[in-house]
């Protein structure tokens, strides 16, 4: 293999993995505060379509980015209201968000499928994604607010007893996660594709969800994991090009299988589970109970 080919492959891996980093790092923060949001795929699609439509109509990248982010704030705000204030089941609410988002994005984008746009340079976002991981890692481990987020996710009753506002903290982390998913969607429709197509995120929301577990809720591992997942997907295409006779589906299922293996590994030992997974994940918080 020549140097050019290797650089070319690395370049493709960089460009195709970035949405996983965005959505994954957002979900990581949400889960660190004890909330499991299964709505990533829906959030990404709506973020992708709102950004795309705004760009087609206004021709302004700033407006399109802004509205894409707003869509994430609104949708994840609804999710937060349901699971935090109305204490609904997080799994069901997240699935509802995904199903709703798939439908809504398809309806909104109907007239815009196939419209050509000038894509943005993906490298801005790639750089931002690395900075984000650095920022989140620093935030969670070195700042007081980050410590509060982790405390709320580990044991919300203790955090509440210490005087921290559990609901407010979780609102912020859920909305942060929502905005990151919208950005992932925005990146896909504006930089990566650049176009709009129904269901164009193609299951990346689920892979991002797997990624958080695979990374055992640690930001730097998430970055490494994202590039492993992204690399495997690209490798599959290249290996087939040079004649390796392994079915491509085998590579496609690797992220999911790897996540299950990691999950079994960390949960088979109580101490290991405690050290990695947020203890209050998916447990609703009620003040007066």
């Amino acid at each position, binding site marked *: 293999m020549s140097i050019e080919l290797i650089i070319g492959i690395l370049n493709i891996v960089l460009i195709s993995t970035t949405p996983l980093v965005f959505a994954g790092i957002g979900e990581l923060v949400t889960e660190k505060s004890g909330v499991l949001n299964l709505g990533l795929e829906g959030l990404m699609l709506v973020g992708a379509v709102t950004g795309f439509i705004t760009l087609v109509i206004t021709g302004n990248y700033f407006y399109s980015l802004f509205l894409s982010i707003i869509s994430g704030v609104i949708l994840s705000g609804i999710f937060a209201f349901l699971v935090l204030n109305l204490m609904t089941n997080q799994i*069901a*609410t997240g699935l*509802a968000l995904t199903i709703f988002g798939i439908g809504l994005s398809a309806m909104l984008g109907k007239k815009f499928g196939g419209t050509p746009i000038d894509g943005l340079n993906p490298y801005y976002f790639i750089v931002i994604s690395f900075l984000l991981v650095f920022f989140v890692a620093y935030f969670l481990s070195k700042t007081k607010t980050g410590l509060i987020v982790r405390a709320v996710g580990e044991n919300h009753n203790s955090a509440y007893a210490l005087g921290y506002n559990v609901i407010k903290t979780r609102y912020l982390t859920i909305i942060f996660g929502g905005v990151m998913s919208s950005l992932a969607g925005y990146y896909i429709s504006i930089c990566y594709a650049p176009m709009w197509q129904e269901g164009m995120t193609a299951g990346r929301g689920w892979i991002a969800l797997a990624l958080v577990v695979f990374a055992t809720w640690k930001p730097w591992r998430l970055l490494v994991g994202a590039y492993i997942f992204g690399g495997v997907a690209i490798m599959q295409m290249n290996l087939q090009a040079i004649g390796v006779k392994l079915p491509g589906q085998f590579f496609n299922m690797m992220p*999911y299988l790897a996540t299950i293996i990691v999950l079994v590994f960390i*949960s088979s030992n109580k101490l290991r589970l405690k050290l990695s997974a947020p203890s209050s994940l998916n447990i609703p918080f009620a003040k007066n109970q």
Partner: protein
Amino acid sequence: MVFLIRLQLREDYSNLIFYLSPLVAVALTLFFGSFIFLILDLSPIESFKIFFISPISNSYGISELFVKATPLAIIALGLSYCFKNNIYNIGAEGQLTMGAIFGGGIGLLFNDSTSIFLLPLMILFGAIGGAFWATIPAILKTKFNTNEILTSLMLTYVALFILDYFVVGPWKDPAGYGLPKSMPFPDAGRLPVLIDGLRVHIGVYFAFIICLITYIIYNKTLFGFKLKVTGLSSKASQYAGFKYKKLIFYTFIISGACAGLAGLFEVSGPIGLLYRDISPNYGFTAIIVAFLGRLNPFGIILSSLLIALTYLGAEDAQLFLKIPSAVGFVFQGLVLFFLLGTDFLNKYKLFIK
């Protein structure tokens, strides 16, 4: 601003509100749905007619309603065992796919068979395939304490890729112009239809039988009682000496077998062969059906019909209103949002200061 609403946990848990809230959720969905139509510049009344009434205004439409409701009801009935037991198996889509692979595989293996035993064998393997796929999260949960929500979800995608492997690889129809689909099943492997010329098949009977059996299990057997107790309080169940791990296993196997059955019915009924997209999200939508039916067997039958209607209405909306059929997902998502939201009123009393 100070919150002016105070909450109090209800002591008088109201059964009436519990069963009324799905209706409230549906009403709210229709109300918000009409805004969506208005935004799209469509008359809400006309659109609702096309969405909810015209699809079932003839015998073909009613047959299609049952075709769509059958898998939803069967999967949701199976899931209700898990959900009652507070086990979140959200991988029904994968178990459905595995059922289709196992049962469909039998149909392809004996593709020149004319035996009357072929179909029962396929049905059996369909159920086994689904149950097998559900056993994996069950084992991981009971042996390694692994979160079943994540494993069952991840396994869904693994199953979809396995199906994809088979239909583009070893099971690809040599006479299929290279399309990613299998050979059609032999006639002996096709599910009999109930009425000539329509697609509604004997899976409907299975759905009703499973519904009745489930009703009896929930209300008349010790197993049903154990599920109920464990779901309400796992501590009480431990004190009573119920074997929780066994319950987890049984509920997973039942729900997996049901999903597998539904998958086999899809491929041996309306579809007739194996290909990539055998299910329009039935496994996930059935979760909505189970919740909307309040985990009650008869409630699930009703809600499966309603959700099936959103599939049909969405197809008609695409045809006549020129809006994407994904509009059905909007309604499905909304109805679940509102249902979960209205449940709140059942758990808490509101006082306005």
